[in-house]
């Protein structure tokens, strides 16, 4: 545990990629394989479920530290992280231990899941007494299910590739499935991860997907990309990225977060595909017609593990296919985009002839004579229910993650919706933003109540990001000055600040007070030129809803 805590501290403290990489390599070289296996799992983004409810963690920590509840809460508000608060307030350990990460996870934490509170209590007190501040922090994070670390999966891949002397694409491939919780990290598993390449490897993949190739935001005028003819242009859908894997007579559907979601989309699970095919695309709810349903509809499907026949009928899912990564068991990722596209078109056409297969749609390629004409077509994005366009280099390979070395995918998104809203509640952030008010609730004017007490501010969105540190500091200060009431970590403030809020989508929602829900709200800028009275109204917001 000590080595992993040290690694965590190093990764957490430095912002330098080189130093993170060095620290990772150093750890993987020296750690016992069983510990290294779990380290890979956590560092690459594995998210174990919470083993002990937060309430119990808090309660036992308070008991052990001998602090009053109120004083513990004051500490928690200053720290902004439960595990870190607990690590700091407990008395120093009396029985330091040398137990490794794997044993902590398998013998220490796993048995706590669902155990009686009394059992959990005596275990926690024993564990905490064996660990120093850094280790306690980590253990408590792992138990509480909130482990996160400032390192990308790509970096973990690079570190492993360096110590194994293997191509990082191979490591990335082997890492697929490591973090979805379906396979237990073991010493043997870690040794396989860094073992010599073998010929049978490709055949042993089971239902594993390929690492997703991710797009970059287009940060310049598209003309800068050169000849339009060198680019394959598609719509950018606002759905759920997924790979549909068909091998050994079975289908697997994987989300970008590497969650296996086959059961949630039975209509895609039953598609009969040839063996050895992997399709990359977007899952959407599509009722028929030219445009997909809003993301909110897809969300209703995403959350359900058991899908009723009624829901299948009301919210039918489709996969819009835009890439072919494997065909007849052969990895196509090094072929040029245009060639993969041609094979995809052929495959989808064949399937449609054979089976009808309305749940599999081919993503259309958009053709235009010039960038200017393309921009005009892009202006139709909202009516078409898409977020803009994707620009894919016609001669590019399919890369790994957010890389640009073998070609680039650009997302050319339309400008977000925007509305001027008033800050009415604020909550302190976490981690880097602990003790700063960074999470805000925004409201617009509801004029419906006019006549009886005048118009009211009605909250419609929460937003966290978009301001610089300096701007946050100013807003934080203004919040403290204009606080009306504190409810735990939340403050209500006298409305005084107007912000331009951007968002990607909007839908009616009976669950929200304002009657609407917006997607990806974020702060575009503070409108210091506007008074609270000049903020937008709920009617203005609702007018953005596309007429049904």
């Amino acid at each position, binding site marked *: 545990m000590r080595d992993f805590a040290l690694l965590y501290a190093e990764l957490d*403290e430095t*912002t330098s990629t080189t130093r993170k990489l060095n620290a990772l390599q150093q750890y993987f070289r020296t750690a016992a394989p069983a510990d290294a296996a779990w380290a890979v799992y956590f560092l690459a983004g594995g998210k174990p479920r919470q083993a002990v409810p937060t309430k119990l963690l808090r309660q036992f920590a308070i008991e052990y530290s001998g602090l009053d509840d109120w004083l513990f809460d004051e500490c928690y508000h200053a720290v902004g*992280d439960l595990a870190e608060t607990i690590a700091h307030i407990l008395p120093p350990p009396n029985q330091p231990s040398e137990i490794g990460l794997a044993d902590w996870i398998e013998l220490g934490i796993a048995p706590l899941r669902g155990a009686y509170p009394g059992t959990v209590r005596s275990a926690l007190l024993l564990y905490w007494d064996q660990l120093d501040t850094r280790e306690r922090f980590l253990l408590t994070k792992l138990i509480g299910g909130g482990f996160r670390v400032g390192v990308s999966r790509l970096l973990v891949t690079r570190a492993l590739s360096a110590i194994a002397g293997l191509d990082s694409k191979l490591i990335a491939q082997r890492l697929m499935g490591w973090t979805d919780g379906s396979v237990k990290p073991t010493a043997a598993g870690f040794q396989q991860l860094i073992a010599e390449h073998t010929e049978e490897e490709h055949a042993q993949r089971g239902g594993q997907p390929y690492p997703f190739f991710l797009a970059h935001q287009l940060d310049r005028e598209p003309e800068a990309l050169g000849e339009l003819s060198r680019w394959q242009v598609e719509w950018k859908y606002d759905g759920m990225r997924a790979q549909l894997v068909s091998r050994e007579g079975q289908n697997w559907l994987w989300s970008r977060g590497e969650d296996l979601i086959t059961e949630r989309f039975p209509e895609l699970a039953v598609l009969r595909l040839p063996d050895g095919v992997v399709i990359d695309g977007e899952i959407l709810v599509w009722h028929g017609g030219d445009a997909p349903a809003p993301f909110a509809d897809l969300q209703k499907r995403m959350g359900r593990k058991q899908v009723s026949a009624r829901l299948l009928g009301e919210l039918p899912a489709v996969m819009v296919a835009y890439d072919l990564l494997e065909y007849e068991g052969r990895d196509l990722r090094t072929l040029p985009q245009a060639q993969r596209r041609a094979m995809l078109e052929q495959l989808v056409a064949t399937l449609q002839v054979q089976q009808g297969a309305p749940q599999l749609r081919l993503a259309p390629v958009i053709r235009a004579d010039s960038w200017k004409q393309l921009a005009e077509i892009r202006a139709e994005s909202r009516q078409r229910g898409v977020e803009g366009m994707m620009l894919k280099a016609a001669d590019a390979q399919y890369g790994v993650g957010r890389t640009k070395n073998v070609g680039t995918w650009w997302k050319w998104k339309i400008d977000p919706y925007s509305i001027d809203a008033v800050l009415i509640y604020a909550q302190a952030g*976490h981690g*880097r933003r602990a003790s700063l008010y960074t999470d805000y609730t925004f409201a617009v004017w509801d004029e419906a109540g006019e006549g009886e007490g005048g118009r009211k501010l009605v909250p419609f969105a929460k937003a966290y990001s978009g301001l610089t540190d300096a701007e*946050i*500091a100013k807003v934080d*200060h203004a919040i*403290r000055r204009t606080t009306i009431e504190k409810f735990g970590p939340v403050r209500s403030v006298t409305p005084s600040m107007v912000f331009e809020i951007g968002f990607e989508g909007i839908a009616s929602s009976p669950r929200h007070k304002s009657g609407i829900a917006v997607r990806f709200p974020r702060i575009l800028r503070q409108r210091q030129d506007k008074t609270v009275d000049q903020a937008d109204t709920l009617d203005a917001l609702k007018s953005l809803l596309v007429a049904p």
Partner: protein
Amino acid sequence: MTSDMVVVRKEGLYCVPGQFYIDPWRPVERAVITHAHGDHARGGHRHYLAATPGVGVLKSRLGDIHIDGLAYGETVVHNGVTISLHPAGHVLGSAQVRMAYRGEVWVASGDYKVEADSTCTPFEPVRCDTFITESTFGLPIYRWQPQQDVYDDINDWWRANAAQGRASVMQCYSFGKAQRILSGLEADIGPIVCHGAVQTLNTVYRDSGVWLPPTVMVGDVDKEDLKRALVIAPPSAAGSPWVKRFGDFSDAFASGWMQLRGARRRRGVDRGFVLSDHADWPGLMQAITATGAERVIVTHGSIAVLVRWLQQQGLQASGFDTEYGDDEADDAGVGNAASSAADNASGTADNASGTATATADVAATATANVTANVTAASAEAVSTDAPPAGARHA
């Protein structure tokens, strides 16, 4: 209430019978200064009184002032109040102010630290009836390691960097923290380079008889040797051309705020060393208990928390709103300074019982002024790599 020996006025803490101020934030006739950090020692007073070991630093920072030194433990009587100064262990020349009048004793702590270090006279508890204490780190999450452990960590970090041919740039405040770190360095690891702002204060310390390892200015070192150097510079030097000359260096920050991940990550340095010149939570408890005071007045920091806690322990406790920032507040990034000011204000509201003098108006002004100071200090921090003389802290 009217008989309180010390009250808050718009100029600062005021000793009523003695007719003098303690660390006032506006110009006054007579000021007793606890220590030379900028939020406690300001320019413009007619007459200053400070502990003798602190006179040199005050003069170097405030220029030509009318100042008297008083040796620790010696007394002077002013308008019937017997004043003496006692070591606070915070920085060179830092003092607690003891005031005795008609059989009653009050002590104002200024800033203090209970762990002894070799760069200043160690903290001495002073028995009193009423103790005015700071509360910069007044939460149980703040518990310091023994300083030798921190020095060891700093030396290990330096040694590892030197072995890789990389300079180690330590950001810390020029006055106090810098010298304390210097006193813990193992000088055989490599050359110790100090920024001009730090070097000026090193001279004052050495002149006062404090031993510090040999230090040099950057121009005195060969380019090759810089790669093994430990560099001590004020935070304002971060990102400046002065610091860029060290090439691929590792940077660190030393402050009590580095205890928290959030503050450390906001700083964006490779290493955060938890080293403070203020008392931690156990230190505050130890100091308060040792005074034997029945009444405690809490200033700058976690006022509301400490007041509530002390009241639970059966003490008569209340808060004073002051304009002392805390010298380490800047360390944590802009947020904390503002938050301590705002929390000060709420502290008064919640605990108005003890002090009638701290009115809502005073609280409001205090908050507003602290903001102005914080803004000024951060502006300085980015605009210059020279020591921000006078104002807050270099």
